[in-house]
């Protein structure tokens, strides 16, 4: 046996796919809204991202069990970061290959640093029109020039960019224009998974339907808006489960099921899109689904809720007896309503305008909606940054006390008199009516009834502007809305992702309230230069106080998600940032 043959054999051994996944095991899950596609640079909805997470590999990812969420090596080792927090150097692991595709012309295609450089640059390309471009615009040294040179055309990917540098085949060096210690969590998003340039170029017109990545699954079948089938990637590198359990008993069960085993376990994942609650829930009960969130309408049927402490729940006996598993998790999100701060009626920073906003906030019964609509499965929002995200302050009380009587008295003091028809008028004598934007679902309607109640108590006319999401978003950007509800989920677990929602430079963009406050801006800009810690938290507290005083938002609540799994599902633990846990799940029927 000559030396070359031996080397080839050794190589073959290490490259040999782990083939751990049992192709006979099929995981059935559902999503409650349609996906749009699988090009990570083109989609931003949760549902597409959930699929992409399983097809593509970002440089770094999250540990499955560690809480709070912890970043770990994925296709790259954890990078070395320069002291000033500007230069990130990644070392890609050799021997990782893309799934086979016609674009590779029958050859194995290794993952390299250039692939990540290409994938990041795609978010800057005007012709790609990435919904995530705000995360990379102006972020990398020298990238702005490249974008400017492209104009409205395609980016020239071959032009070297100082900030996105391929040092050698396996080394990627990213240089930021500003200090940022949280940049790594942005790169862990599914949107920054590696795509292969050949594949993108071969399928230029339809990249959404041809996802080829290095991840544990590949797209087998796609019926848009109806069904998605993933199959274990036969060429997936050997990944052995090695997460360390914490104190949670769930952790021990996961470790028991997965310790030392290669991932993924299940050969085929079938994702159905089921938008109505009834078929979703009944499908799960009839075991047509293996894992499912509990829809709002089924919460009381599925859970025994302790009225003394509604977050203390257990699985209803009839389901517990079957051995179903319940898991719960507070979401890294905030739900709030905002005022259009440029509006002549509800906006502005004079005292009477603040009083109007404050009164509305005081009259909205957040606790009642948590009881009746959330079925107790939510906590009130009291800080712009939610728990589980760096920068949260659990001791801060940002929401005003529910007190419609005092709210009325407050309005009286600022000249919002009650007119002849029993409704209040503006201090300048003009009629007062507030318009609230809302969607059209049955759930929207439930919320609107509480808003109607709140405004009735204040004796203020309320009108609803009902519409599709994109119409309302457009109206809001044109400054035509007065109030609207929003939910913001963490893109990455850092407070900056939330505090930027009120930064004046994001007005008309993510700053939906069009809030412009010089003090807030100054504090925000200062906070960008600091890593997470007490110093930054102090700035965050000060910014929260400005928001509480000015009341551009009415703080709503933060949901606690309940997920159920059939008894034979092993390895499930909900993760605050990973969208799915499919690669860790095993079925032992």
């Amino acid at each position: 046996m000559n030396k070359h043959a031996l080397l080839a054999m050794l190589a073959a051994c290490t490259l040999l796919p782990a083939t751990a996944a049992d192709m006979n095991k099929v995981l059935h899950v559902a999503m409650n809204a349609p996906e749009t596609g699988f090009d990570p640079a083109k989609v931003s909805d949760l549902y597409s991202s959930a699929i992409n997470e399983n097809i593509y590999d970002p440089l770094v990812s999250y540990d499955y069990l560690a809480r709070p969420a912890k970043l770990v090596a994925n296709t790259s080792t954890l990078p070395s970061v320069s002291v000033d927090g500007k230069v990130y150097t990644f070392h890609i692991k050799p021997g990782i290959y893309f799934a086979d595709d016609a674009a590779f012309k029958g050859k194995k295609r290794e993952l390299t640093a250039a692939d990540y450089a290409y994938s990041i640059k795609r978010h800057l390309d005007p012709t790609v029109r990435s919904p995530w471009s705000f995360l990379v615009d102006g972020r990398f040294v020298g990238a702005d020039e490249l974008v400017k040179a492209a104009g409205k055309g395609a980016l020239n990917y071959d032009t070297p960019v100082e900030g996105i540098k391929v040092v050698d085949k396996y080394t990627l060096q990213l240089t930021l224009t500003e200090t940022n210690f949280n940049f790594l969590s942005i790169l862990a998003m599914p949107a920054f998974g590696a795509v292969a340039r050949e594949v993108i170029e071969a399928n230029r017109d339809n990249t959404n339907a041809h996802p080829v990545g290095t991840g544990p699954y590949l797209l087998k079948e796609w019926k848009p808006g109806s069904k998605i089938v993933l199959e274990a990637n036969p060429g997936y590198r050997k990944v052995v489960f090695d997460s360390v359990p914490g104190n949670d008993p769930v952790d021990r069960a996961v470790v028991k099921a997965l310790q030392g085993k290669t991932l993924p376990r299940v050969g085929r994942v079938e994702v159905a899109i089921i938008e109505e609650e009834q078929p979703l829930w009944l499908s799960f009960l009839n075991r047509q689904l293996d894992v499912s969130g509990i829809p709002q309408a089924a919460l009381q049927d599925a859970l025994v809720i302790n009225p003394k402490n509604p977050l203390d729940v257990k699985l209803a006996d009839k389901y517990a007896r079957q051995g179903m598993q319940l898991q719960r998790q507070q979401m890294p999100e905030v739900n709030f309503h905002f005022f259009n701060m440029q509006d002549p009626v509800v906006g502005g920073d004079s005292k009477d305008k603040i009083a109007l906003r404050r009164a509305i906030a005081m009259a909205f019964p957040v606790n009642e909606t948590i009881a009746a609509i959330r079925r107790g499965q939510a906590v009130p929002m009291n800080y712009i940054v939610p728990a589980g995200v760096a920068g949260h302050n659990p001791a801060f009380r940002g929401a005003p006390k529910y007190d419609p009587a005092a709210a009325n008295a407050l309005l009286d003091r600022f000249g919002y008199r009650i007119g002849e028809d029993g409704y209040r008028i503006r201090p300048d004598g003009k009629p007062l009516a507030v318009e609230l934007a809302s969607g059209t679902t049955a759930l929207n309607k439930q919320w609107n009834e509480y808003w109607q109640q709140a405004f009735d108590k204040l004796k203020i006319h309320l009108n609803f502007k009902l519409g599709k999401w994109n119409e309302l978003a457009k109206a809001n950007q044109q400054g035509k809305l007065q109030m609207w509800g929003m939910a913001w989920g963490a893109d990455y677990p850092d407070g900056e992702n939330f505090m930027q929602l009120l930064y004046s430079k994001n007005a008309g963009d993510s700053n939906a309230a069009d809030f412009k406050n010089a003090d807030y801006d100054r504090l925000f800009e200062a906070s960008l230069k600091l890593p997470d810690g007490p110093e930054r938290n102090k700035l965050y507290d000060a910014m929260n106080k400005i928001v509480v005083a000015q009341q551009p938002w009415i703080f709503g609540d933060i949901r606690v998600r309940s997920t159920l799994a059939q008894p034979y599902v092993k390895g499930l633990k909900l993760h605050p940032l990973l969208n799915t846990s499919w690669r860790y799940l095993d079925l032992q029927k």
Partner: protein
Amino acid sequence: MLAFIIRRVAQMVPTLFGVMLLLFVLFNWVGGDPSYILAGKNLSPEALANIRHQLGLDLSLPQQFVIFVKQVLTLDFGTSWSTQQPVTSILHSRIGPSLLLTGSILLLGTVLAVVIAALVAYLRGSLTDRLVTLISTCAMSVSGLVYIIAGQYWLAHKAGLFPIMGWSDRIAENLLYYLPLPLLLGVVVGLAPDIRFYRSCFVEEMNHDYVRTARAKGLSEPVIMLKHVLRNAMIPVVTSLMMSLPYLMMGAMLLETFFSIPGMGKEVVMAVDRSDFPVIKAITIYIALATMLFNLLADIVYKLIDPRVELS
């Protein structure tokens, strides 16, 4: 006959043009701006302008309409704005399930309705007739929504007789496993009005003079019923059947939603929701064409069944 067909086909052109005009006006007036959906969390004016440019929304309205005309002439509607899939392939994947669902509902529903209607028309005035008419009237007074909700809850979930929802790629599996419950519910929703309508057609036919003449000639009732009445009464039946097919494909939307069937109705709602104009355009044009064709077909069948009908 041929001249008639040619004239009718020629008449379709202005109608199609009208449909296009209506659709174009409606969408540009009320359709919503898709760039806000595609922009995701990034709503900066530059990003929105970039998207509008790439979708061709920054062209003038006449220019956009000319493009639309070209699309209709070539029947190539480009790609979906939201998923970027070719519209043709989207429709292709949706038409099968839609046809299977609505076709089987229509077939089973019509056969059942015609048989029952003929029977009660034959027994008109009897207790059975009154009972069937009354039950049909009551049955059609319940909203279709209630049938679907209750059917899925009790028949599929509580009784476990059917799967809750689902759809497969294999026709056999669909027919035997997934289809029965939606089919049953679809038939139940449509059956009662059909029975009432067909019964009135039959009864009207039976009041005609030629039936009396036939009776006077000593033909037996069943012969009269089968040979004359049924044949003539088939005209409105065929018409209503032909006319309802294109509509049914949309109307099965609720069934598609509750039973996760990847059909046209669901696609339209999704497309409208996402302001996905290419998909809306394609579906509307195809449905309009189908409606016109089936109208023509109905007239031709008319003529074949009853040569007395003047084709004007």
